[in-house]
């Protein structure tokens, strides 16, 4: 591809030098913005599909697998509510997102970020 720069380090004029491997390793590998019912992906990268499993549960599938099933990530809900969001790393290609208030699940817009090494 045109415009490729191959470098092992980036140097700032004031803040020192950083190995580019940290940029690659530390960048978000999967991201998505999904609607409250899990039926629409508004914005995404490295996502193949979304499944509306039931009330308050959505499953996100990746195009490029992660290397391990112990990847890190975060999921947030778009609106203020009593619900807590949590993310379950099911496999190297799937994340399950939940919206739960301690007694019941509720539909919510979900904002996803997955970090880790790619396969």
């Amino acid at each position, binding site marked *: *591809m045109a415009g490729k720069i191959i470098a092992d380090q980036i140097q700032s004029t004031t803040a020192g030098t950083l190995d580019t491997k940290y940029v690659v390793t530390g960048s978000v590998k999967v991201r*998505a913005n999904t609607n409250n019912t899990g*039926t629409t992906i508004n914005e995404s*990268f490295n996502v193949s*599909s979304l499944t*509306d499993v039931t009330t308050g549960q959505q499953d996100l599938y990746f*195009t490029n697998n992660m290397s391990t099933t112990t990847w890190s990530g975060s999921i947030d809900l778009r609106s203020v509510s009593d619900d807590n969001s949590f993310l379950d790393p099911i*496999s190297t*290609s799937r994340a399950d997102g939940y919206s739960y208030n301690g007694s019941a699940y509720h539909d919510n817009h979900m904002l996803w970020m997955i970090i880790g090494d790619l396969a």
Partner: protein
Amino acid sequence: MNTPEFQGTNLWERLHWAKDNLEPVQTDYRVVFENDVDSPASILVADPNWMACALQGGILPPVWVYWLLAADEAHPDFKKHTRGYLLHDTRPIGPLTEEQAIEYLIYKDVPRTVWENYNVGNKPKLVICNKSQLPQTREWRNAWGISDEVVSGNSKTVQQIEKQDGLDLTEMFSNELNRSKVYA
């Protein structure tokens, strides 16, 4: 726009190229499936950027690559993928129609236990429909299921992917399964 020659290019980089150069495609198709008798029906929708890649061709790996990685992952000793190169080095598939893309996605993202015998039983465990055919509200969402009136006449099988790619997939997959003992 022509797709660059991507065989050997990291899939992650290909997805960046697609994001920069292809318009997302929102499909009207939905895949409704029942994973087990105690759970409500699940509804799968394709990602618009992924669908653009599938229609464009030359970007996505063949679906069997994901099956092999899944078999690796199901092995009890699995720690991390050591065959990620399959995603990057295997020759990408050509352009698909929207219908073929949905079929690919079923084989990739719907549990194998659902699609390999989806049409055995009193009613299919999986149907493809349009968005407009789904309930218009979320009422009783946790009780949704595939209607008893649905009858599927689709007889497409996994073997058709083999023919398409000229692979002896049955043998390849069988070897992986025997090794991993996942579905044995």
